[in-house]
């Protein structure tokens, strides 16, 4: 039974989700107008996962993020101005224009950074968890990763170490159903990716990643467990990316058209083939 938030909580949740959505739309707009360069991976449609997950965190907790990481940063509390400045390659950006979209970090507040390498953040999250344990603090590291990273050796090695050492890490797998063009249903012969958690002897759970309260509840349970010193958990959040990753020839997906609660009357661009704008936002 998902706990109903108070009106104030609900407002805060909605505000975070809208901040992510509007930030991403602004990026898309600036990119489309040629005012932003590089590579941008938008998380439009996935806002509920970082928003719900980060609600379970407290000061000193860490996150590791992915190449599709703007939402994680914002949900963890990143300043929108410094984030946008980074994407615009400005010296007052989070990384002084050295990192860009795939490397935004705010290490002082526990955002250990986005990552340009699929799976790159997983062992780092295990290390942050180990550090928390060795330093004797009750902080937890939330490791956002995509379904695409589940095929990486880094995924298996990080889960192996985290489970062996009972590290305070919560692995949040954003299953947006495609690793670039590879359907996760085709890639992994399990009903749910979370079934793989059993192989590490840790709790695994699949939640509706477009239901922000369901995400919050599952992650809170896992974070509490980690804080008690009982070790890592794995949460698969089913979601869908609306922009910037659909590749040639994909069939429409069951999740297409669903929205984590931010739908508004705006004509949806035809998707299914790369167009110039789309291609610009994803290699």
């Amino acid at each position, binding site marked *: 039974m998902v706990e109903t938030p108070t009106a104030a909580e609900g407002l805060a949740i909605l505000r975070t989700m809208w901040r992510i959505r509007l930030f991403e739309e602004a990026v898309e707009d600036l990119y489309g107008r040629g005012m932003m360069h590089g590579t941008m991976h938008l998380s439009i449609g996935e806002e509920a996962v970082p928003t719900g997950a980060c609600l379970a965190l407290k000061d000193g907790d860490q996150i590791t993020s992915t190449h599709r990481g703007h939402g994680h940063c914002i949900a963890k509390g990143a300043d929108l101005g410094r984030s946008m400045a980074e994407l615009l390659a400005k010296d007052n950006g*989070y*990384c002084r224009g050295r*990192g860009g979209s795939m490397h935004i970090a705010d*290490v002082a507040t526990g955002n250990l950074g986005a990552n340009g390498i699929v799976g790159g953040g997983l062992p*780092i999250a*295990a290390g942050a968890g*180990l*550090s928390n344990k060795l330093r004797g603090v009750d902080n937890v590291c939330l490791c956002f990763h995509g379904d695409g990273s589940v095929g990486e050796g880094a995924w298996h*090695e990080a889960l192996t170490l985290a489970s062996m050492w009972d590290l305070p890490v919560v692995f949040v797998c954003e299953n947006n159903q495609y690793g670039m063009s590879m359907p996760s249903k085709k890639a992994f012969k399990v009903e749910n990716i979370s079934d793989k958690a059993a192989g590490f002897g840790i709790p695994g759970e699949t939640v509706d990643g477009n239901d922000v309260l369901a995400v919050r509840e599952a992650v809170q349970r896992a974070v509490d467990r980690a804080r008690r010193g009982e070790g890592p958990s794995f949460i698969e959040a089913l979601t869908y990316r609306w922009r910037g990753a659909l590749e040639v020839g994909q069939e429409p997906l069951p999740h297409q058209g669903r929205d984590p609660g931010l739908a508004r009357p705006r004509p949806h661009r035809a998707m299914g083939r790369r167009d110039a704008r789309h291609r610009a936002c994803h290699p």
Partner: protein
Amino acid sequence: MTATRTMTYAEAIREAMFQAMTADPRVFLMGEDVGIYGGAFGVTNDLYEKLGTDRIRDTTISELGIMGAGVGAALTGMRPIVEIQFSDFLCQAMDQVVNQAAKLHFMVGGQASVPLVIRAPGGSGTGAAAQHSQSLEAWFAHVPGLKVVMPSDATDAASLLLAALEDPNPVLILEHKLLYKQSFEVPEVFPKALLGQGRIVREGTDLTIVATSIEVQRASEAAELLAADGISAEVIDPRTIKPLDLPLILASVSKTGRVLLVQEAVKFNGFMSEVAAGIAESPAFGDLQAPIRRLCGLDTPIPYSPQLERASVPQVADIVREATALVKEW
């Protein structure tokens, strides 16, 4: 005169780690079989009994995971030492070394750093064949953001490890597996060392021999033999190949007018190619009386057969032959 004592290269590393961990609670070690097994080469030995299994931390066989855990711990206030059992296995951990550890400080605009020390044995001579005997230093020195250290004796192995632990950025220490059991005279207190400072191992006037790791020892032995033949060789150990103490090398080359560059790694694209280029680009080039000469490992995987293994990397006799030719022919 300072008092000295005798200890092996492995014992010096162990003592330095113990010293660092006793002084700084942030320092810990993790790696494969470093606990009760004592390390594949016995470097950690009984450290886990003294420091506990939290700080001498046995891992699964997961080089990429261990390296990433080192990166994450270093980012969040710890000073991890990651031991990779053979430097060849760094290939399994490359993403975390090259794409993460080396770049993070720069990528995040300097707001964080990764004070990670990686220790890994390299080199041939143990019959471990092609996947356990490589000298891969040039790969790592090629990556901006990594420092690469190659200690050639026990004192340097300890002092450079302590210096690496004080560095705010990742440092890879490539130890040599043939040196682990060798005994050396070491001072009572390990002297302070600087990363990027080379050492004149032996002074000479006829030629300069620059050598790394085990080849420093072979070059020193060769220099003894050369002296008996009336050739005075100066032997230089850069100690850290990145940052590189090029001024030390250039000054020696200007003095002697001849230079022989000796490494165990294969010649093509090797570290000594960088040293050769550094000399060629400098005014010291004008002081050369002979072409720069390199003596390196053959361009082949390290073979299993002991005769072939020896033949594939520079030995003392090879250094004597090349140095003699360099002096007598020019």
